[in-house]
């Protein structure tokens, strides 16, 4: 099997050499955040740490963790390590309640992101001459623009169609002859089914770069079988950069984390680092970002790492599939949703009690989110029109606060389950 490698010097660097490269970058980033980000300076001072105390990766456990909550507390720009005038782009993902999580990029960051997405494109053998249909959403979400810059960097033809509108996706897929597809795996399955429904047996697709939501080997087999492509897994999160933090090669044995730019750790429930092979909370320290570098950012994605050599020749560690979350975050059609966001959105609607239940299903290969809400006597109406208007109002509030569309189901007061302490808010019926 041919393995295309975009940057062999970095991607195939012997691990010892890579480690000393990381040591240098870690020292640099610790110094930069200490000098430029009050949040990190105070955290380090609280531990009696000076930048000079961090000699390299071996000292990583001395450094403080960063949580999503820290990004919220510093909303919008307080974690930036450069003056705002040096920032050329911001992206945002939905926060846990109300305010989104904001990330800033310098032009150097955008350039490095394109490089890492170019490496990811090469992992899938996507290069000049390929046509890449990008069906990730464009906008504050990092998916669309991240894939876009990477595909451009390798010289492919980019079709920036963005997400949704399946009919149009199918038309352009056939008319333009895309050879690569970038979207969420569930949307890929959805497109595959639509093709089948329309009786279209042949496309020019040879590979798919799928991410932004967890999926399984059986989903991979199904997509590969239906679309006759290689379906590869890509991983990323906006806080750390966006898509392209790690990417599977054609060996399909886990995603290579671009270790010259990100230092991964697996953290156990006691907050201590775990060795390769053990499952825990994936945590990243960004090694090259200037706009918003992060130390030991807890993704709360559960997975394992391995440093066993890969047949493709890349030396960078591979992460396994995401096996779950260490918090209550849900991923609905690629959008991160926290139950607390839904609760916050409900409380914006007059008369709605915070008695609710979130039911997630996978129907026709797409995730559906139903929010069951008890109808208070205050909101009772004798007309269907008014009750349906109330449902729309609740759905609108959820759409604007949690950036996800939800079906609202009104329920009789007292009908939703209550339990001592923490109520069972989420019923996830998806079988992955």
């Amino acid at each position: 099997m041919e393995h295309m490698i975009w940057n062999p010097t970095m991607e195939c660097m012997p691990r010892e050499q890579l480690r000393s490269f990381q040591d240098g970058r870690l020292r640099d980033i610790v110094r930069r955040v200490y000098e430029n980000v009050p949040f990190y300076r105070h955290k380090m001072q609280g531990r009696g740490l000076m930048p000079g105390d961090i000699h390299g990766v071996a000292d990583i456990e001395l450094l403080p963790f960063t949580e999503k909550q820290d990004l919220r507390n510093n909303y919008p720009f307080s974690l930036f390590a450069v003056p705002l005038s040096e920032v050329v782009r911001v992206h945002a993902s939905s926060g846990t309640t109300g305010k989104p999580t904001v990330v800033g990029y310098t032009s150097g960051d955008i350039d490095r992101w394109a490089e890492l997405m170019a490496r990811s494109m090469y992992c899938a053998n996507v290069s000049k001459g390929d046509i890449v249909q990008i069906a990730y959403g464009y906008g504050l979400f990092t998916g669309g623009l991240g894939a876009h810059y990477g595909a451009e960097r390798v010289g492919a033809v980019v079709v920036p169609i963005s997400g949704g509108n399946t009919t149009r996706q199918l038309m352009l897929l056939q008319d333009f002859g895309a050879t690569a597809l970038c979207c969420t795996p569930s949307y890929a399955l959805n497109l595959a089914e639509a093709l089948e429904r329309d009786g279209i047996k042949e496309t020019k697709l040879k590979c798919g770069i799928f991410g932004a939501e967890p999926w399984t080997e059986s989903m991979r087999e199904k997509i590969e079988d239906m679309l006759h492509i290689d379906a590869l897994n890509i991983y990323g999160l906006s806080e750390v950069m966006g898509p392209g933090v790690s990417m599977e090669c054609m060996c399909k044995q886990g995603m290579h984390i671009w270790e010259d730019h990100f230092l991964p750790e697996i953290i156990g429930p006691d907050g201590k680092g775990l060795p390769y092979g053990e499952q825990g909370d994936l945590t990243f320290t960004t090694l090259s970002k200037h706009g918003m570098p992060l130390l030991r950012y807890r993704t709360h994605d559960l997975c394992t790492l391995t440093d066993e050599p890969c047949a493709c020749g890349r030396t960078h560690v591979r992460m396994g599939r995401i096996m779950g979350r260490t918090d209550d975050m849900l991923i609905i059609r690629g959008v991160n949703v926290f139950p607390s966001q839904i609760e916050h959105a409900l409380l914006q609607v007059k008369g709605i009690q915070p008695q609710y239940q979130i039911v997630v299903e996978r129907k026709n290969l797409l995730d559906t989110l139903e929010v069951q809400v008890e109808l208070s006597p205050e909101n009772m109406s004798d007309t269907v029109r008014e009750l349906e208007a109330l449902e729309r109002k609740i759905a609108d509030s959820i759409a604007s606060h949690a950036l996800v569309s939800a079906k609202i189901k009104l329920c009789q007061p007292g009908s939703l389950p209550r339990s001592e302490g923490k109520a069972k808010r989420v019923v996830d019926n998806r079988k992955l």
Partner: protein
Amino acid sequence: MFVKQISVFLENRAGSLAGVTKLLGDNGFDLMSLSIADTTDFGILRGIVADYKRALTILSGAGYSAKVSDVLAVSVPDHPGALAEVLSMLSEKDIGLEYLYSFFRNHGDHALIIIRVDKPDECVKALQNAGIKMLSQEDLQAV
């Protein structure tokens, strides 16, 4: 001139209608009229009972979302086309109908229709001007 209607929110699931009607029956309520509006997920039971205040207290006490609202009990001649005439008249006066259902018992040779409109006061005037009789809460109990 208005009649008090009680409405109750019901989820669309087996037994929910049986539950609320049993509750009303056990408490001695006679449903003089009844209608159900339903969507995929929920229904609204609407009905007329003599003592709507007590009905509201009992329903609320049992945990139902219930509401009392003003509707009109219109006496319509019991012959083909009579209802259409009344409704056309309201429509000409730009009075919108939210919903309508019929009363169980007749009022002499007239049928009784319960209507809910968007402009209740204008509707009363229009019906009066057209010589169409409306029944009060007390009148209904005597039917």
